[in-house]
């Protein structure tokens, strides 16, 4: 066992070549699968299963058989690329980049770095302590903590796959703006006294934990995170698309205009409230919402719902309660919730 470890260090070339080879093979298979997806799934639905085109069942089955592999392929491919990008960033490096930045420019930078920095809400507490202890303003820290989970790779890729790049882009842009503005407001309110006292008394170690990575290590890590993330969400994706397919096939056109359309003023705040407890199902919620939009739900309401599902998550607020007093938690939820509601109305009004 010891020899193995030593060999790994001494002769890196052979395992590097294996990593590159594996990547090339996977890339070719991925591309081939993605290009034959539409004809194969059509053939399966209409020729093998002999379902009639235009029938309720035929539509629902075609939707399901095509969308499940498409979304899973897109998720694996895009998460791989995003994870490669993320190996160039780390929370430690982000903290160094944010050090000494003032409100304003700091909020913008923090929100942008929130997109690319690897982040898990389970690490929100050490990250929060490490940021504020190193002198990063509270508002800037919040801009990061809002952007990082909201603009997450699973949500963005699924929006791209099911709604197209325009909606995915709008989602990213409004997520960024909400993170910047909400962080700036929290900073202006001077709420440092509502951070739990022990945070200020801690002696957090400064300095970074830096790793030098080779390209084959970056590829292996990205590979691991694809397996990890897709392994976690695939079931939600399948169930979500199944429900979405049912709606697609059976719910009549424009059935939802009255309750989720632009005319229903209360639909945006209702969507935000409904979204808060749904965090773990973000992957399953998007296909359902995509089908709802087809039936008359409006874009602003739908975007507000999704942002509330991923950005205002109950588990993350519970974790943050360890370092924030209830007053600050309330301000956080209030400010972000309000920002999402305004964004929802704005899209309903503009589009």
């Amino acid at each position, binding site marked *: *066992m010891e020899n193995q470890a030593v060999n790994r260090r001494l002769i890196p070339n052979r395992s590097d070549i294996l990593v590159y080879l594996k990547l090339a093979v996977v890339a070719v298979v991925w591309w081939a699968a993605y290009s034959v997806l539409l004809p194969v799934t059509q053939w399966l639905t209409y020729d093998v299963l002999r379902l009639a085109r235009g029938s309720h069942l035929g539509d629902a089955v075609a939707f399901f058989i095509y969308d499940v592999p498409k979304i899973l392929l897109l998720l694996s491919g895009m998460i791989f690329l995003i994870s490669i990008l993320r190996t160039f960033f780390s929370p*430690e490096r982000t*903290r160094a980049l944010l050090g000494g930045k003032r409100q304003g420019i700091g909020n913008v930078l923090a929100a942008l770095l929130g997109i690319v920095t690897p*982040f898990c809400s389970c*690490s929100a507490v050490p990250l929060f302590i490490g940021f504020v202890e190193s002198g990063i303003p509270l508002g800037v820290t919040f801009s990061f903590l809002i952007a990082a989970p909201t603009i997450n790779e699973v949500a963005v890729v699924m929006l791209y796959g099911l709604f197209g790049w325009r909606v995915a882009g709008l989602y990213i842009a409004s997520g960024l703006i909400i993170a910047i503005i909400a962080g700036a407001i929290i900073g202006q309110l001077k709420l440092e006294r509502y951070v739990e006292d022990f945070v200020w008394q801690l002696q957090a*170690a400064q300095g*970074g934990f830096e790793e030098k990575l080779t390209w084959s290590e970056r590829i292996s890590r990205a590979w*691991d995170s694809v397996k990890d993330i897709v392994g976690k969400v695939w079931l939600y994706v399948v169930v979500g698309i199944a429900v979405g397919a049912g709606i697609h096939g059976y719910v009549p056109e424009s059935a939802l205009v009255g309750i989720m359309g632009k005319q229903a003023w209360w639909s945006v705040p209702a969507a935000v409230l409904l979204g808060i407890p749904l965090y773990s199902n973000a992957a399953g919620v998007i296909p359902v919402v995509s089908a709802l939009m087809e039936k008359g739900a409006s874009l602003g309401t739908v975007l507000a719902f999704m942002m509330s599902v991923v950005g205002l998550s109950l588990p993350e607020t519970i974790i943050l309660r360890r370092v924030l007093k209830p007053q600050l938690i309330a301000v956080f939820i209030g400010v972000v919730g309000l920002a999402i509601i305004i964004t929802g109305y704005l899209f309903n009004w503009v589009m």
Partner: protein
Amino acid sequence: MVNIKILGSGCANCKRLEAVVRKIIAAQGATAEIEKVTEYAEIMKYPILSTPGLVINGKLLSAGRIPPEADIVGWLAQAAAPA
């Protein structure tokens, strides 16, 4: 004896990392002192922003992920070797 610390407050990956480390130690038939550090005051003494963290003989070796087993084996071999 090698001292191993797993830094992290009960996250899923923290438990998985601990299991991996225990498995490697058991497979080697080695003895090691494995500590779980769950208090943020203690965790933050290391330059760490994401959990789980792996500390062997006082040195922080990985943060925010579960390192490949081969890496852990390598670090343990280094730590056990007389300086």
